[in-house]
């Protein structure tokens, strides 16, 4: 074999073996297996997010780069700060009530004998499995000024008609109510799963030690459910903050913009008012708020994970 060919062959073997080594490396395999997900996230999350960022730096006719002018414009608007405030009221109130109701209902279902529990679980999940745009339309009819079943009942007992969607306080109450109705089953099912994973022996030991209901709840149930509560609250906060359909169908942001949340306001400005850069700027404002919530909650979860 000529010398050159031998060197080439040796190099080929080395390349082949290094490729084969790389393929066998766990990190390479992990990367390859994660690749479809990376591609999906890049295409469906990173690219749109980057594009939204790009859009938010353009002028109204999308022809000139204006830097942070859209954000500056928003910061000067009373309506925008009202939307920030309302988004926080909406998300925080709705998540608190969803968590509370989910927690209580999970305990009730947990204490139902196993035989009938599945039936109850199924029924309680119904609001969560119906597409919200559809179920919200049913709520719209319940709140409707001409055909409201609620008002019909209230008037039946001599009460006054309530402007469910026409007065700021009632409208905020109504959209939070529908969001809680829709989202509480998610909390319920998560908490129920968490409850089922608490070892029964802990309660038995506590009972032997003379612990009451409240002590069992405070020293066993809550610590054992803490991580799932944190994750569920985080997940629900993100979803509730970015809610669109319930507000859009029920009030479209009215009356006098007092029920707008980020998503509906972004739609109003970006799509309906043909100001896509401004709409993109509004929608991006959700990001720092949600990122902050995610960092705080996940750091807490991670710290507790390290402690155990």
């Amino acid at each position, binding site marked *: 074999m000529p010398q050159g060919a031998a060197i080439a062959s040796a190099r080929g073997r080395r390349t082949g073996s290094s490729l084969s080594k790389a393929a066998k490396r766990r990190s390479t395999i992990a990367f390859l297996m994660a690749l479809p997900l990376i591609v999906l996230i890049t295409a469906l999350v990173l690219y749109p997010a980057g594009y939204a960022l790009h859009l938010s730096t353009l002028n*109204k006719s999308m022809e000139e780069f204006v830097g942070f002018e859209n954000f500056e414009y928003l910061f000067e608007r009373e309506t925008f700060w009202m939307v920030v405030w309302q988004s926080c009221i909406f998300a925080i109130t709705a998540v608190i009530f969803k968590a509370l109701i989910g927690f209580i209902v999970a305990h009730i279902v947990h204490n139902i004998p196993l035989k009938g529990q599945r039936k109850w679980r199924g029924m309680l999940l119904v609001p969560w499995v119906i597409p919200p745009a559809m179920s919200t339309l049913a709520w719209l009819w319940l709140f*409707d000024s001409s055909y409201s079943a609620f008002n019909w009942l209230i008037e039946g007992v001599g009460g006054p008609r309530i402007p469910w969607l026409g007065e700021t306080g009632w409208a905020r109450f109504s959209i939070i109510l529908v969001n809680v109705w829709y989202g509480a089953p998610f909390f319920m099912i998560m908490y129920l799963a968490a409850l089922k994973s608490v070892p029964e022996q802990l309660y038995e030991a506590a009972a032997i030690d003379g612990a009451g209901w409240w002590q069992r709840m405070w020293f066993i149930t809550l610590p054992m459910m803490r991580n799932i509560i944190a994750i569920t609250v985080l997940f629900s906060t993100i979803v509730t903050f970015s809610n669109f359909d319930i507000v859009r169908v029920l*009030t479209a942001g009215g009356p006098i913009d007092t029920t707008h949340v980020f998503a509906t306001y972004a739609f109003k400005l970006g799509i309906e008012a043909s100001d896509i850069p401004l709409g993109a700027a509004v929608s991006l404002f959700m990001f720092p708020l949600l990122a902050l919530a995610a960092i705080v909650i996940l750091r807490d979860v991670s710290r507790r994970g390290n402690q155990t």
Partner: protein
Amino acid sequence: MMSSKLSRRRLMARGAAATAAGFAGFHVSGAHAAGKLSVGLWDHWVPGANNTMNELCKEWADREKVDLQIDYITTIGQKHQLTVAAEAAARAGHDLMIFTGWAASDHARLLEPVDDIMADLVKSNGAPNRTAEYLGKVNGKWVAVPWAVMSALKPPCSRIDLMKQHAGIDVQAMYPAGSAPKADNWTWDTFLVAAEKCAKAGVPFGLPISQFGDSVDWVGALFQAYGAQLVNSKGEIIVKSDAVKQVLEYGKKLVQWLPNDVFSWDDAANNRWLISGKGALIMNPPSSWAVAVRDAPQIGSQLWTHGMPAGPKGRYAPFTSNFAGVWTFAKNKSAAKSLLRHLSSPAAVEKLVAASQGYDIPSFANLTTFKTWAEVGPPKGTLYHYPNPHNHQIASIAAAPAPPRIANQIYVQGVMPKMIARITQGGESIDKCLDWAQKELQGFKRA
């Protein structure tokens, strides 16, 4: 999106492919356009109206030997608006497209001038109304042709019986079928008194004060009747005027006689209010009447569509006008223009109006007296005055005469209804409300 494939002249198409250069010249020649044409039209709310459009298009496509593709695009969920925005951004899509009121001027730079078509249409159809001109003409050039389909006036639709019984107003005598209105006393002041009487009788007027189109339209007409402009035609903010204060004072008086949840009413809520029998008057195109005739005939037969009240500066009627335009990136502009001419002819418009059961309103002066409006019922003649046959009122759009790019923002963000809502439901003083409006309007001037 519904798609309807019409005339297909495969022989012509193959011939065009084989001798592309020769046939391309033929297409451009215009008189007998051939090749393919793609059009995006509105999916009409009135059942069956699309069929008449199909027939008219087929008639034209067969005659002109054009392979025509029609896409009916729904307005539900802003799908039509999104399609227009997407096509404008992609510089690709349909050749001929329908545009809602503000969209034509928004996309003026991407639309072929249609002055040649308009010159002919003015000869055959009469002059377009001022709203059509305001929205369709940019820098002195027509960028789109006023389109009757789903263009509508939103005048009062009153209960004959309730108005007579509680307000002492005979709307049929005021607006008799077949003859000119006798409505000199039908002013916004009379309207206020009638609103109070009907509210006290338990059948209040159903007028939304929200950000939805029906609300913006009637409030816009009220502002115009008082000469209350927020921004003038030069783009100057003139919201802090006596006229605006006067109309806000009027709004304050009127709102107390409206249902307490009008501040969030959508475009269907007023229809439901009328059809449920709870109200004596709404302002809407005849779709509410048509649904009432179908679902609540005893109420439908008591409805009468008539003119708007007059204010100190005139009698203005809310008009939502649509347009048809040809994109500059259209592949077959001559065919698109030819189809536009065909569908805008008086005969075609009359058929389209009949198919819409009188809902559609042409913007041209000579096309407001079709027999459809005189004949439909019950009660017969209920829509006679709907198209403004005696030119009794001025068809207008809220926020005009502000430059359309500013007026569009005022309209879409419902600034005028919001002003009334702020001083009534919101409890704000008029001066504070004007400060708020001034700031909002300054923002709308951004390019």
